């Protein structure tokens, strides 16, 4: 293991803005941070990477004053604290974009951006100066590339747009250090580019940035230095010259990964059409009919810009949202799905975008989560058989390599990647015909990602039709057999393997024609 002092002191010519010394934080049964130390210089962009559960968010929460460390010191701008409070953190110029979104749906965008720091009218009444508030918000929104106005209610924004508000909020603080905890996890490519530009701009202004991401290529592009966390300890730091994908992975998980090769393995020849959507209309784009054929044994990637309607399509196919028109058929037979229960009964399963809200029940055990969609099969005369339930769970735990003390462990205590595996496990324990995965690797570390890609491939190999919605360009290109691209609620084109390229996906995503290998081919 590398020694931190070697690398960090070598670089800092000026005094660091922030330094952490031997910070330790434990939760019952877990050491989240184990004597961790690091420094951040002024105007330095630190890429912070590590597996799920390595302790990244814990570290950031300590810097944000949300959690207190058990021991260790945080020195901000020369002032030592044994634990920051939220106020002290904000006061010392630390701005924070949390991993979980923290917006108020009932307030408008401007109110959210300046929440807790509202401009006040003169007088002792502490009244909010609302005109000034809007005026101050506008330039920030422009800077993050927002396409919505300052007085839009946050409830009307998509997940990605909300993430932009979060970023604007961090920028609004006259910050000396901006912490971004997986800010891109639901941002598609164009918005991600904007964000990377913003980070570069901050550096130019002498503002420090800590950038946490599981998308290592993004880290590669902006970081001046990469800090790798493993099991709550510093696994090493990489100076600018040594930052590359393989190095990071090696430090993160202690070995090299063959994830790309594995994902790229071509599938077998796909079978017949399993799920067919014909002129389906969704409530977000009621005027845009969508038609799509999904074949047995293929992984069909579904790409598109933020708000292009992919999630909505998945929700309609899964029966959560109402289908406003068109028809759907499964294996050639017309299908009328009006609830998730109908979809499940027909073997159509969804791994949703928002794991914590809709994917799993954090308070239930792993075994209870896995059996939930298929309880009657684990019951005799309507009474749940604990034995059958445990057997299924043990089998899935083994198959998927879920890391947990036991299948009776509360799911909420697992790291993100393992939680995601539990979501997969509950469907794999049944017999999927069609598996829809919405951002299946959002916030998942690179090791777990590879395992999930492997699982998707073996599902396809077993004849399941897989629809994978993803905003991660590498993933879409690396994993799919075909790629469908959505643009403003409609399928703008479908690419075959030999036409796969980042450029083509992007062209279709903005509604333009792709450049195809065989000019005769033509997009659909």
């Amino acid at each position: 293991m590398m020694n931190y002092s070697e690398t960090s002191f070598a670089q800092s010519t000026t005094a660091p803005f922030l330094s952490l010394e031997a910070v330790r934080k434990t939760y019952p049964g877990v050491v989240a941070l184990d004597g961790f130390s690091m420094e951040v210089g002024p105007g330095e962009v630190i890429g912070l990477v590590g597996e799920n559960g390595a302790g990244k968010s814990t570290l950031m929460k300590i810097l944000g004053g949300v959690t207190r460390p058990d021991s260790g010191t945080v020195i901000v701008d020369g002032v030592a604290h044994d634990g920051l409070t939220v106020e002290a953190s904000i006061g010392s110029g630390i701005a924070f974009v949390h991993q979980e979104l923290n917006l108020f749906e009932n307030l408008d965008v401007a109110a959210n951006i300046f929440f807790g720091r509202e401009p006040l009218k003169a007088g002792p009444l502490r009244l909010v100066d609302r005109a000034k508030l809007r005026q101050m918000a506008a330039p920030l929104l422009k800077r993050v590339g927002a396409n919505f106005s300052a007085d839009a209610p946050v409830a009307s924004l998509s997940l990605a747009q909300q993430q932009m508000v979060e970023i604007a909020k961090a920028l609004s603080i006259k910050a000396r250090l901006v912490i971004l905890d997986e800010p891109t996890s639901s941002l598609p490519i164009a918005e991600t580019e904007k964000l990377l530009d913003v980070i570069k701009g901050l550096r130019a202004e002498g503002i420090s940035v800590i950038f946490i991401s599981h998308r290592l290529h993004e880290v590669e592009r902006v970081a001046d230095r990469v800090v790798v966390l493993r099991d709550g300890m510093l696994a090493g730091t990489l100076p600018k010259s040594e930052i590359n994908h393989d190095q990071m992975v090696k430090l993160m998980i202690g070995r090299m990964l063959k994830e790309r090769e594995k994902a790229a393995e071509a599938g077998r020849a796909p079978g017949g059409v399993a799920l067919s959507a014909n002129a389906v209309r969704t409530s977000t784009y009621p005027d845009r009919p969508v038609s799509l054929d999904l074949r047995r044994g293929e992984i069909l990637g579904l790409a598109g810009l933020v708000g292009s309607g992919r999630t909505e399509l998945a929700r309609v196919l899964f029966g959560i949202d109402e289908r406003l028109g068109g028809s759907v058929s499964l294996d050639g037979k017309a299908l009328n799905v009006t609830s998730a229960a109908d979809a499940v009964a027909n073997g159509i399963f969804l791994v949703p975008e928002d794991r914590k809200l809709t994917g799993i029940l954090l308070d239930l055990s792993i075994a209870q989560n896995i059996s939930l969609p298929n309880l009657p099969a684990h019951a005799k005369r309507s009474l749940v058989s604990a034995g059958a339930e445990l057997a299924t769970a043990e089998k899935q735990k083994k198959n998927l390599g879920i890391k947990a003390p036991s299948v009776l462990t509360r799911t909420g205590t697992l790291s993100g990647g393992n939680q995601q595996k539990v979501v997969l496990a509950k469907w794999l324990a049944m017999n999927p015909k069609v598996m829809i995965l919405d951002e299946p690797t959002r916030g998942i570390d690179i090791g777990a990602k590879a395992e999930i890609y492997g699982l998707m491939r073996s599902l396809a190999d077993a004849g399941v039709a897989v629809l994978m919605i993803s905003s991660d360009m590498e993933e879409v290109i690396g994993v799919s057999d075909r790629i469908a691209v959505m643009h403003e609620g409609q399928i703008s084109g479908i690419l075959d393997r030999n036409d796969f390229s980042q450029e083509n996906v992007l062209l279709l995503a903005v509604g333009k024609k792709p450049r195809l290998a065989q000019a005769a081919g033509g997009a659909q």
Partner: protein
Amino acid sequence: MSKKDLGLLVLILVVGAVVTAINPRFLLPINLANTSNLIGLFGILSIGQAFVIITGGIELSVGSLVALLGTLFIDFIAVREMDWPLAFVLIIVLGAIIGFVHGWLITQLKMQPFVVTLCGLLIYRGVARFYTADGTAGFAFGQNFPDLEFLTAGRSYGVPNSFIALIVIAIVMWVVLHRSVFGRYLYAIGKNEEAAKYSGIRTGRIVIAAYVICGVLTALSAIYFAMYTRSISPASHGQFYELYAIAAAVLGGFSLRGGEGSLVGVILGTVLLQELQNLVNLLGIPSSLNFAVMGGVILIGVLVDQQWGVFRARRRMLEATRRNVAGAPAE
């Protein structure tokens, strides 16, 4: 039995021991029978409430329903001279229908449980009062229904049949809540309704079923209450019974946020509440303090339970830290 339930049981026994020490007549068979009769009545009501609370809902119309359904039952058999088994079935069906309507408004029209059942609270009592023109529904002197009276107000081997009914219902409902597929769904919905829906559960139907169960059990207890008082002034009968039922569930470890609580807990909660009422009378405490004693004990009970949980969690954490600190150099 969970730790929480055990704690409650200990509290019940301690209170019982103290009362016995002051007035040994507390343990007389007749007193135990009287109190267990009311435990039966309120217990059935509270189990119904518990099924709704577990889904994260609430049923505030319970007291008014006890008044309305009780009034109708007595009116059916005493005035309209209907056969009591027919009237019995009618009332139960009516309870189920009302529960269904509540569940339907809540799940299909997306109204808040608090609002729907608050309106129920206002409406049902009004209807009952209108039905009797603000009078009383009661039996004429000497009007007797031996079978019905035996089943509702009678005793078998000294044990009130209402208490036996509670035990039977509790056993059945324990299995339903803690062992059946339906019960698992209820907990899942209470914890996270969205996620349950995404797992393919027809959450609407399950929630409606919970309200129907509550309606049926409320109707049943309405009949028991009617046969106990044998006379009903709709303006006041059953007033605040929803609070008794909710309090029993909360004492028994149910969270009003849903997804938590055990059937044993709600029964023990009911037992404690009735023990407290009994105590007020047996120890000659002014009746005015009846409610205050109840409120005080609930507050302290919930507080102690919660702080005890916090304390244990803290201790566990400290221990973990200590262990880790001790182990650190070895790494």
